[in-house]
């Protein structure tokens, strides 16, 4: 197989891994070596599905000995198998990097022989890149579940970010669909990586030549819609993961049916893209807006509102919190207003220092007045046109274009009350 063919097979095999960022670590270039890293991350291109491309995302090999139900590379599928050599990967990474196609490398792999053997192949590749080739760009490496701690440590010393994929949102689902990947084999490495990162960060501030350990942190990924967990369970799991493992990101990947399997949704079931979108919106609320998971979803309402994003949904259902006076409210309160995000909240606080803010000023600051006007007061006055009439407000808040984009049937009758759980389940998760 020539390089082009290997690249086709092994990037095709890697594309369902959602993690795509190149952010998290600032690293200046070193004289004599090529490469640096930008903490904000740089998008080098965007794919046909609209996702950012910033890394060369490939599998080391797709010749897997596991048989996970959802995976295109599973042992029981009859597909082309390929394996890169460490030199091929290093060469490709360097040439692409030189041409500014990428920020760095995203290396994952199928399980070749054993988890430890696979890790050793990956470590060989990264050592070559960092050592002989002098590469100082970004590397994101996937840790193989069940790998030995010593190998994890060696991988984390070479990579900027490491992740272990949680794959499915519950132990039961994991046992049913991907029995080769044991829960402990996934969580134990996550714990040991968390500890390694903490120690590495401490040592970096105390010792000049401290050995690095995944300076850009740890992330994980799970598949949405392959198994019956509801949104609340997934969100609660997310909150727990951020808390317990101090992850940088949790990625959600809408289940794309690639295999015909009785344990999973049928091949013609469309991927739950809207649901994935709502999960990312909720994830942002947890990380940047000061929300708790139980404020967004709870036992009585375990599914996202299809028509309203989680923040607007919260606002509509908590009228007692509004209106918020923009000239007096604190940052947390401002962040609860639909149309005000962390950047505009900070700008409001800044602008307040030199005088009262009125609705025209707010617009200039970047507040989405179309939404915010129903929820705020400016110096005791309601903004122009801010009379709360259900018929007018809900279409504005619901982002119809967004719904259409995910091509779900439009509901002619907008209602203040949440759509029933059944409707939403049918629309979002497909038949089981």
């Amino acid at each position, binding site marked *: 197989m020539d390089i082009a063919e290997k690249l086709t097979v092994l990037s095709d095999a890697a594309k369902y891994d959602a993690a795509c960022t190149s952010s998290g670590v600032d690293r200046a270039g070193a004289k004599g070596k*090529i*490469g640096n890293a930008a903490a904000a991350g740089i998008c080098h291109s965007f794919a046909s599905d609209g996702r950012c491309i910033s890394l060369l995302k490939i599998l080391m090999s797709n010749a897997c000995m596991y048989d996970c139900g959802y995976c295109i590379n599973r042992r029981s599928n009859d597909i082309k198998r390929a394996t890169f050599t460490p030199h091929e990967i290093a060469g490709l990474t360097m040439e692409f990097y030189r041409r500014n196609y990428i920020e760095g490398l995203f290396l994952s792999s199928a399980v070749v022989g054993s988890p430890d053997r696979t890790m050793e192949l990956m470590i060989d590749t990264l050592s070559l890149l960092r050592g002989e080739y002098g590469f100082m760009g970004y590397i994101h490496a996937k840790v193989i579940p069940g790998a030995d701690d010593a190998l994890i440590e060696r991988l984390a010393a070479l990579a900027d970010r490491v992740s272990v994929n949680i794959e499915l949102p519950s132990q039961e689902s994991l046992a049913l669909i991907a029995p080769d990947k044991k829960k402990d084999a996934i969580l134990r490495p996550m714990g040991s990586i968390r500890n390694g990162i903490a120690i590495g960060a401490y040592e970096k501030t105390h010792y000049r030549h401290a050995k690095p350990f995944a300076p850009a942190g740890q992330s994980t990924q799970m598949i949405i819609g392959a198994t019956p967990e509801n949104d609340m369970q997934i969100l609660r799991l997310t909150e727990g993961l951020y808390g317990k493992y101090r992850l940088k990101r949790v990625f959600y990947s809408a289940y794309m049916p690639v295999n015909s399997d009785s344990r999973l949704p049928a091949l013609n079931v469309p991927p739950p893209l809207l649901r994935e979108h709502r999960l990312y919106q909720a994830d942002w609320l947890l990380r940047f807006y000061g929300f708790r998971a139980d404020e967004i979803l709870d036992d009585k309402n375990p599914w996202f509102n299809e028509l309203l994003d989680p923040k607007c949904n919260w606002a509509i259902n908590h009228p007692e919190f509004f209106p918020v006076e923009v000239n007096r409210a604190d940052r947390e309160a401002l962040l609860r207003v639909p149309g005000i995000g962390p950047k505009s909240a900070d700008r409001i606080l800044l602008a307040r220092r030199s005088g009262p803010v009125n609705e025209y000023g707010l617009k200039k600051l970047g507040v989405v007045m179309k939404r915010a006007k129903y929820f705020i007061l400016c110096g005791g006055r309601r903004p122009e046109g801010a009379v709360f009439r259900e018929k007018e407000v809900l279409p504005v808040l619901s982002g119809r274009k967004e719904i259409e984009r995910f091509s779900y049937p439009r509901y002619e009758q907008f209602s203040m009350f949440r759509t029933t759980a059944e409707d939403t389940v049918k629309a979002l998760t497909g038949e089981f």
Partner: protein
Amino acid sequence: MDGVTYIFDGSFDGLMCCCYESMLKKEIPAAVADENEPQLSMFFGRYIASEADKAAKMARGIGRRFSPEALGMLKVAYLAGCSAVYTAAVNFVRLGFEHGPAAMDMLSDDSVNTIFCTCRRVMNEAHHYKGFLRFAKYDGGVLIAEIEPKSFVLPLIANHFADRFNTENFMIYDEVHGAALLHEAYGDARIVYAAEISLPDKTEDEKNYENLWRVFYNTIGIEGRRNAKLLNSSLPKRFRPRMTEFAK
């Protein structure tokens, strides 16, 4: 007198001299324009000469009386190169001298808003180019890239690329502004002016790698999630002609 149009040579020093003139004469110009710009009303236009020491004095004054951050923003906003920004800049500086650092918070003032937004716009374009710019390797190992930016972003991306590719000989050519960033391996980067350049043919090896990138690009998109609208809003079409994966 108020309402006059300042005309200057288009340099940052010239802009500083316009600010100096406005403060000195205690007047608010109706517009501040680059002499090289075609649409120019010659009525009530006053030419402001660019003097290095005056400009330096002004810049120092802005840093001290107004804020160093403001000076930084002016240097970035200036790169946008349009009359509206120059005019806002003069008013921004006036505000700064009147209110001191507090003027940085007056985000609802039109001039302040223009400078902030322009600064953001120019920084965004520079950031886009850090990602979308594509080098091609030519005979001798030289990396060459071409860009067509709306604002003059070369000064903003120079350090990033000089740091990242310090081991390489490279050139980034800005077609629109007729300027090129030149970097020698293990050396420094500098900006030179060149009306046009002619490039040699691409080597087989280069075409090979460009092809590999296209292979990767075409494979990595998930068919079932095709989304042209999202792609268009994330990757503005004007960047695509120079990008390997989109160019023919």
